[in-house]
């Protein structure tokens, strides 16, 4: 029934593990991304989000050789699929320019939230940075290292920075609390007014 409606992703191969290490400095972020992938195809394609005010230089791809295709919104890296058990696919690249978001190569193969292990480590994050503003959910491992263990591979890491103002995350959480309190108050006031009107009618 309606084959074009049924999710075509369900039969695709999987990323069984992914480890991404990002090392930040003032002008460059060096990234090494390692993937264990279960795939039948001969080649494997990775998509990197291409952010404005940012340059990406891929320095090494294993197993190579790799081909690259640049568009306005992304960089596609195609490489031969790793053959043999335990052989990973590895990408090394440098990001320059705006380092608030660091692109992560996402294979065109899904992760399995129940069976895959994704670990993202960012080195060089200021100890005073507010982790709640980061993406995906980050926790501090050790000094300047923060770690995320998302169930699926994100397209980038949003690096937490030292900020003093109210962040969008905190603002939205506060807004929810204010909204709930205000609606409860409104409901109570309206109920009292209706009860008063009803008793006047009686």
């Amino acid at each position, binding site marked *: 029934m309606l084959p074009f409606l049924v999710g075509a992703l369900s039969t695709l191969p999987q990323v069984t593990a992914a480890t991404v290490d990002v090392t930040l400095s003032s002008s460059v972020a060096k990234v090494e991304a390692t993937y264990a992938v279960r795939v039948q195809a001969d080649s494997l394609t990775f998509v990197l*989000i291409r952010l404005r005010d940012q340059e990406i230089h891929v320095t090494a791809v294993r197993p190579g050789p790799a081909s690259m295709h640049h568009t306005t*919104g992304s960089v596609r890296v195609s490489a031969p699929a790793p053959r043999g058990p335990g052989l990973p696919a590895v990408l090394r690249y440098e990001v320059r320019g705006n380092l608030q978001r660091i692109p992560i190569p996402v294979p065109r193969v899904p992760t399995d939230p129940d069976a895959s292990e994704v670990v993202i480590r960012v080195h060089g994050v200021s100890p005073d940075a507010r982790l709640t503003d980061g993406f995906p959910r980050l926790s501090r491992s050790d000094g300047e290292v923060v770690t995320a263990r998302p169930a699926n591979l994100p397209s980038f890491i949003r690096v937490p920075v030292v900020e003093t103002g109210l962040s969008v995350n905190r603002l939205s959480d506060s807004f929810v609390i204010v909204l709930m309190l205000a609606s409860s108050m409104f409901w109570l006031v309206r109920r009292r007014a209706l009860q008063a009107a009803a008793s006047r009618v009686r």
Partner: protein
Amino acid sequence: MGPTLVIALAIYFTIVLGIAIWSAFHTKTEEDFIAAGRSIGPFVGGAVLAATQISAGTVVGTLGRHYLTGVSWWYIWFGVWAGWLVSAFFVAPKLRRFGALTVPDYVGARFGSETARALAGVLIVVSYTIYLVAQFQASGEIAQAVLGMRPLTAMLVLVASTALYTLLGGVRSSSYIEFLQTLIMVSGLAIAVPVLLNHAGGIRQATDFLRSLDSRLLGWYYGPKELVAFGVSFGLSIAAAPYEMTRFYSMRDERTVKQAIGVSIGFQVVIGLSVLALGLLTRVLFPNLASADQASSIMAFEVLPPIVGALLIVAMVSAIMSTVNSVLLVTGASVAHDLYGRFVRPHASQFHLVMVNRLSILVLAIIPIYFALQKLSDVQAIVVEQTKFIASFFFVPVVIGLNWRRGTAAGAITSMCGGFLACLVWEFTGQSGFASHGIDAVEVGVGTSLVLFFVVSKLTKPVADANLRIFFKN
């Protein structure tokens, strides 16, 4: 987010239970149970209609569909709203004036036929059991992704909690709970959009990336033929949806019903736009999820700040609960009021009927769990299938039947059976060639139903004036 989510869910379920207990004290007769004593106003009524319309199909299925296919799926909303407008002008006021308790009540009275009434009751039970499968499947997806809970456990918890508030207070408790659920859904979805947009780096950044992933995401993933077919399915089924129409009966008068439909469309516009934005932005943040149905729960659990995320998960749970509740009320009423009360025990007491209604709700809530565990298809696809069947057997007898006085009982019965069978047969045979001929099962079903209704009605004896007087002025 763990403790925040647990607290949010605990507060939500406490409020729901409180409303249900309060309503139980105000539910004395079958009319109280099925139609809330006809006391619901336009704002609460509008929120209730929106809550019954917005289901797991929207917060899990539609969001997932936008994640997978992009913007074009959004145009289906125009079909939904067209259905609501048909309902507002041609269906709801007449049904409310009639003042029945259930839709088969209308079918039985309008066509002067107990067979037509029984057939309507049976078709409602069958088609809405399919709809419940989608709701339960979505609850399993959310619970597994967010809480790591087994889908079966999640479904049983959902059934227990929803059946509890449905059983206690009937439509009265459902109406106030659904009002609350709509407010939670609207605020949860709308607040999440700027948070995701902020993470994604703005609209331009997001659209650049989406276009590079797949240019159809911001253009035409579905062609006009497919969109028209889906829009027609949703529109025709909304115009004659029994679980929406039951809610018209609980409102004060015809004017309230029209106002409530306007309020409901307003809520749906906000929810529809938010779901579109969230589906696309989740694709930017997580471009390659294993299942599109996971997009909403992953977004709530892994992206949003704790309180907004918890609110959104509560919104998803409440969307599922409100739809399950509405469907259970309709199917329970069909079994107890239209089948048991008419054909098994016509002289049963009010107390007896309410008890049978409650027992039916319990049984009908458990059956779909088995099918939901089989995961026969994705959530949105199941919803689409169900809307096709509802439209195929109900649109003509309800919408045309209310506006063409020559329609007869034989016309209605052949129209319902023929529409249902034509849709079923086309779905399993002709649908595979949709890409070449562009004819969807719903068009075949409704077309067959329409032709049979006109032809058979013309060939059979007209319905007595006594039956028509309430629906037609002259």
